[in-house]
């Protein structure tokens, strides 16, 4: 019983990562109709926004400490972060500690900017092109973005911890009267879950309570006619892409403490997020979110030993098995709309 | 007993009764026109005949066999071809290729892995297709990319694709809509000629009364999903109800 509860909780937060990534992807893929293989890269860029902020905050000047030596026997250079010397170690240290949450402020404009540039410079020309061409160009873009990041940050993961206040875990089991340590849950993952909920809610509200969503859907179905009705659809598409990029970026920035960012983390998520979006059903935001949580939870269950011993290797393939079953029983995924990307 | 017997067909779309208790009998080797106001259910009826829709109740018999529950391609193989209201052609292919496909479909059935074809068999199909294009006056356009033709041309092409299959029952959904008058007249002539040359039954939906009255042997008027009257063209023309509900001053 507690194992089930435990894995459900776990699945929830894994699910919130999937859901958040899939949400951004479905805005581009399910709404704008662009098969965006660079979405994973946008997620990765988001995570590197967090890395960048923490690097900027720890940007240091060097002073030579003649009493100590470095590994080659030369006098040791001691580094002090500028922020610490400007704002004093107390506040400066706190800034450094809170680098990841602060990076949200940085990631939003940066990711919107990147989204803008990518859409205006590249994607714009590909709305009318076949999906295959979109794949080629966005895949190329993903590689380039990755390589650029690799060039500056290296291939190795870069630890980007959460603020000290969120370190450690919460004993959920004790709260509901189970024995200690039965169900523990890291604080930062709770933060991530709530963060995801807020973002998902905000995007839903924006698309639900404005005509924006309808216009973009219409524009995707028939750009020409929407133009005839006086709507500058290009602008809407750009905005949509910017939002999607920002959602992906925020998902990535906040994810940095969960897994240290590396340059190929986007590719690791790419396939999975496509599966999530498609299982959710093309063009459906609730579908993407639902599928994200569902697959997250199922994946958690599949990693339980009781289940693995019954079906060896099930945790390796669970996502795909579920995807196949759902797509075969529900032609358009969980909540897909008819005619969206079916040809 | 007609070649096509529709009995008690009902079709609902959500709250809308698109077809209610439709009975229709089309006699072999006649042209049967179905007219009626917009949204009367004419296209829906055709959809039920070709397997695009399945009626909620009722039966559709073609030549003594039920078409219900069969897939569109099976129904076509029974000898029913259809021209759609908005042209359905193979847009990325050339005009000639568009016509060749039904030629092969007629010869080979629903599926054949004919990756290798003999020269003579190939030629036979090619000749057949070219003959058809000549009939519809499109030989000079045979290498054109069919999607970039004007609408009138697309309609003519689609008709050629259906005719080349030599169907026993040809269903035409507004075949001359958007066609220039000259082409409309050509089409009328073509259909008449085909009818004379071959055993063929046609069911035609058309709002252009000139076409209807030139071709039809019998007319069914459909209104709000039910047949209003069925009669000869002369009688329909004078039918007061039909004049009021449908023809207006055109008659």
């Amino acid at each position, binding site marked *: 019983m*507690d*194992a089930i509860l*435990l*894995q459900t*909780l*776990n*699945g929830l*937060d*894994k699910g919130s*990562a999937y859901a958040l990534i899939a949400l951004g992807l479905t805005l581009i893929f399910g709404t704008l109709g662009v098969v965006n293989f660079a979405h994973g890269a946008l997620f990765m860029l988001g995570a590197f926004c967090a890395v960048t902020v923490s690097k900027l905050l720890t940007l240091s000047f060097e002073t030579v400490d003649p009493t*100590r030596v*470095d*590994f*080659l026997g030369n006098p*040791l250079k001691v580094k002090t972060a500028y922020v610490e010397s400007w704002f004093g170690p107390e506040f400066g240290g706190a800034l450094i500690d809170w680098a990841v949450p602060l990076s949200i402020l940085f990631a939003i404009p940066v990711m919107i900017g990147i989204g803008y540039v990518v859409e205006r410079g590249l994607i714009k020309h590909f709305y009318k092109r076949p999906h295959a061409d979109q794949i080629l160009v966005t895949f190329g873009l993903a590689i380039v973005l990755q390589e650029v990041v*690799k060039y500056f940050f*290296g*291939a*190795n*993961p*870069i*630890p980007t*911890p959460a603020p000290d206040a969120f*370190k*450690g*875990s919460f004993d959920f089991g004790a709260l509901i009267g189970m024995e200690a*340590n*039965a*169900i*523990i849950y*890291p604080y*930062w*993952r709770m933060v991530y879950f709530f963060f995801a909920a807020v973002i998902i809610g905000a995007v839903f509200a924006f698309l639900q309570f404005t005509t924006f969503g309808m216009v973009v859907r219409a524009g995707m179905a028939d750009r020409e006619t929407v133009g005839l009705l006086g709507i500058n659809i290009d602008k809407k598409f750009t905005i949509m892409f910017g939002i999607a990029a920002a959602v992906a970026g925020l998902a990535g920035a906040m994810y940095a*403490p*969960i*897994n*240290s960012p*590396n340059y*190929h*983390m986007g590719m*690791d*998520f790419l396939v999975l997020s496509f599966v999530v979006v498609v299982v959710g059903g093309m063009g459906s935001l609730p579908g993407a979110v639902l599928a994200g949580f569902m697959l997250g939870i199922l*994946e*958690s269950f599949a*990693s*339980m*030993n009781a289940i*693995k011993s019954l079906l060896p*290797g099930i*945790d*390796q393939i669970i996502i795909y098995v579920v995807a196949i079953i759902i797509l075969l029983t529900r032609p358009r995924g969980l909540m897909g709309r008819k005619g969206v990307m079916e040809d | 007993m007609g070649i096509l017997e529709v009995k008690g067909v009902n079709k609902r779309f959500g709250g809308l009764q698109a077809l209610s208790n439709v009975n229709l009998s089309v006699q072999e080797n006649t042209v049967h026109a179905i007219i009626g106001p917009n949204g009367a259910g004419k296209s829906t009826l055709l959809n039920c005949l070709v397997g695009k829709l399945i009626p909620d109740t009722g039966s559709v018999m073609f030549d003594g066999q039920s078409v219900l529950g069969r897939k569109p391609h099976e129904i076509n193989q029974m000898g029913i071809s259809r021209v759609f209201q908005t042209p359905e052609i193979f847009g990325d292919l050339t005009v000639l290729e568009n016509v060749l496909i039904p030629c092969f479909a007629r010869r080979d059935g629903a599926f054949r892995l004919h990756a290798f074809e003999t020269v003579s068999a190939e030629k036979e199909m090619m000749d057949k297709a070219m003959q058809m294009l000549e009939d519809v006056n499109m030989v000079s356009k045979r290498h054109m990319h069919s999607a970039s033709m004007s609408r009138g041309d697309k309609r003519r092409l689609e008709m050629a694709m259906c005719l080349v299959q030599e169907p026993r029952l040809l269903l035409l959904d507004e075949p001359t809509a958007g066609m220039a008058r000259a082409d409309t007249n050509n089409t009328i002539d073509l259909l008449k000629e085909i009818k004379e040359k071959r055993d063929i039954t046609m069911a035609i939906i058309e709002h252009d009364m000139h076409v209807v009255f030139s071709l039809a042997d019998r007319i069914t008027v459909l209104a709000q999903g039910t047949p209003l009257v069925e009669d000869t063209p002369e009688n329909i023309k004078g039918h007061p109800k039909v004049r009021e509900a449908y023809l207006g001053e055109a008659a």
Partner: protein
Amino acid sequence: FTNEPTGGSVTFGFNVPQTGPYADEGADELRAYELAVEHLNGDGDGGMLNTFSSKALQGNGILGKKVDFVTGDTQTKSDAARASAKSMIEKDGAIMITGGSSSGVAVAVQGLCQEAGVIFMAALTHSNDTTGKDKKANGFRHFFNAYMSGAALAPVLAKRYGSDRRAYHLTADYTWGWTQEESIAAATEAFGWETVEKVRTPLAATDFSSYIAPVLNSGADVLILNHYGGNMVNSLTNAVQFGLRDKMVNGKQFEIVVPLYSELMAKGAGENIKGILGSTNWSWTLQDEGTKAFVKSFGTKYGFPPSNAAQTSYAQTILYADAVARAGSFNPCAVVEALEGFEFDGLGNGPTLYRAEDHQCFKDVLVMQGKENPANEYDLLEIVDITPRAQVEYAPDHPMFAGGSLGKCNPGA
């Protein structure tokens, strides 16, 4: 024999991961290779050539031939690695291939070199199989292996954490993970530990929370992470996030062990590594003459200390060159003969034996611990114990290594 050097130079093939998750390891290996070539050709300060016990090399290339090299990208995929190695052999006339990023790749390339008739000097590969069931006459491994990690770690673990511990293994679900799991479990059980559970995790996993969450509940009080690379960084980070290290289980402090450490991974895991035990092949913090010489020339050239991947790469290059010089021939069979049973010192690991039976090097193994107060950004691991070579040795037919045979050396063509 294949690719016999005819002109004034001889070509080595450095086949390392340049793209993909291990690209940084690959880059460090490559740095070491270039340094080795420099030293062989008599440039630079000579590095470990000066401390190496064998004096057959004069710093004028090998047998008077200048050393040249080509590089390639394994992408950490068997296929790509073999393609790259083949191009070095077929196109560039490489006579020796070295490199590696994972055991799968090393075994695959070793097999290729055996068939093609060139020497393979494996670098980063830790699986028992490389010199166990998949050993080849043309292949040699300087790096240590999973068995040795277990043999070195277990006593230290027992001493530190006591002998009635209950271990929970998380293991990357592929060949290397399995051999390491087997080795560590066997070694710790010999000291009285109990293995509660062995859980396999998919290689592609990035979030290990669902594997880590049940650990506390299982009654285990030690978590052993048989992971490497990104897997290890993530699983360790996740484990620390879940607060495992702050818990008391069975009245004991909960502990985490990462049997195979590397400097780059320690960097990737950041703070989480502090106090955690693991093993390495070598460390730049050693104080022997060889190490000091190597760290000096590497550090001077590149500005930071070498990783243990770099050291094994450097050593393998020197060892090959030296074997050629001692044999007086580039013929792979002569080189094999020269390397088999070769005893040497001065390459940073103390006295070392290249065992003839399986082409595995035997030397001391380091037990390392994440440092609590690093003095600088490279000072992440500290040496806890230097396990003497005798303690990590095993018989060539040890069951964990049984099943293969070296076959005969193949000079090719």
